[in-house]
């Protein structure tokens, strides 16, 4: 039996959505029989594979790494789902957008210099530490997103509802209070 090739990705976010996914608890075991997790922070795969059926994206697009990653994901994935408020609205990571242009610099300054307890200095490691984008964006501002699962995080039963819809061949459409932001 072919299982659905599913990935989960963690961009600029707190990993809470992944925690919530793990809150599916015993449902995870049922799911395991029907999906194949091909890429995820929960497993040890280094390169985003080709030919993925469904990807749950957690987090906003905050830095250049995120940007490259989401383009790669879109190219290799059939159905992209914005998973959680950071992906859907940019949420907390985007609060720095209120600081205007060049906010990336001032945010780092605040965190790594002003707030440093010892050895303050801006992190600069080209090729390793990605540069922050001028503007944090929700995923659909960068690439086409097929479906949206808001929530901070989306409660496990919403995730279960989505997975059930997907596995039954229906469009994953949440309704009413299941669409609640926050």
């Amino acid at each position: 039996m072919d299982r659905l090739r599913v990935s989960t990705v963690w961009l600029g976010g707190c990993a809470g959505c992944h925690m919530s996914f793990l809150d599916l608890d015993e449902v995870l075991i049922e799911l395991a029989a029907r999906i194949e997790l091909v890429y995820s922070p929960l497993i040890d795969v280094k390169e985003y594979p080709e030919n993925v059926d469904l990807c749950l994206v957690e987090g906003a697009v905050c830095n250049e790494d995120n940007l490259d990653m989401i383009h790669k994901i879109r190219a290799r994935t059939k159905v992209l789902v914005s998973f959680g408020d950071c992906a859907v609205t940019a949420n907390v990571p985007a609060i720095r957008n209120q600081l205007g242009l060049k906010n990336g610099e001032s945010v780092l300054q605040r965190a790594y210099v002003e707030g440093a307890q010892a050895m303050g200095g801006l992190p600069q490691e080209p090729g390793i530490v990605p540069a922050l984008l001028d503007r944090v964006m929700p995923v659909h501002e960068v690439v086409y997103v097929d479906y949206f699962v808001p929530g901070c995080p989306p409660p496990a039963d919403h995730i279960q509802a989505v997975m059930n819809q997907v596995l039954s061949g229906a469009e994953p459409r949440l309704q009413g209070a299941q669409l609640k932001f926050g």
Partner: protein
Amino acid sequence: MAAKTLTIDGKQISADECATILEAAADAGITIPTLCHLEGVYDVGACRLCLVEVTGISKLLPACTTKVAEGMEIRTDTERLIRYRRMTLELLLAERNHVCAVCVANGHCELQTLAFNQGVDHVRYEYCFPKWEVDNSHALFGMDHNRCLLCTRCVRVCWHIEGAGTKNVSGRGAKARIISDLNQPWGTSDTCTKCGKCVMACPTGALFYKGSTNSEMERDRDKLEFIVTAREKKQWIA
């Protein structure tokens, strides 16, 4: 008082002749979404969520300020209205910094509730991310302009229920904002009676009781209704 007969979404109803479409619909059990309407104060027709279609009239009419008329055929659920409502909500969500996850009113917010009821699963417009201040100068309450919809409920309750006239609107366009007295920190207002009616009236987390943390914000909307009923009907129903 004469009654008028009309239909809303195909349902035949009768309503008092001075009733608005919004009131008539509510009596008939039909909910028309709105954000600026508040029981007990006059309507301003500002949020445009309650727009309805009336047969024979090409313009969309705000249900909150349009009186019923004999034989009116009203529709509240056409594809166009549903689409416009959703767009209006998206415009509101993109306009200021509505971060539900960290808002005191999370779970008790009319904007949030309306958004999911109208099927807003994401916002198609670019978020504006304006820079707004939080006025924490008042001893009891706070005002977070990031979450304000400019529905002016606070202004109306302040003037017409409390009679204090502390709250007002200043500026225009996207820069319009709620101010206290002569655009001064709320805490320095001479006119504010600290009654808290503005906080009770606010649909979002823009006005909040100090000390309430994330998701705690419950409103004493009953209190406003109590006062209005007492004043208008001389009935003191707690």
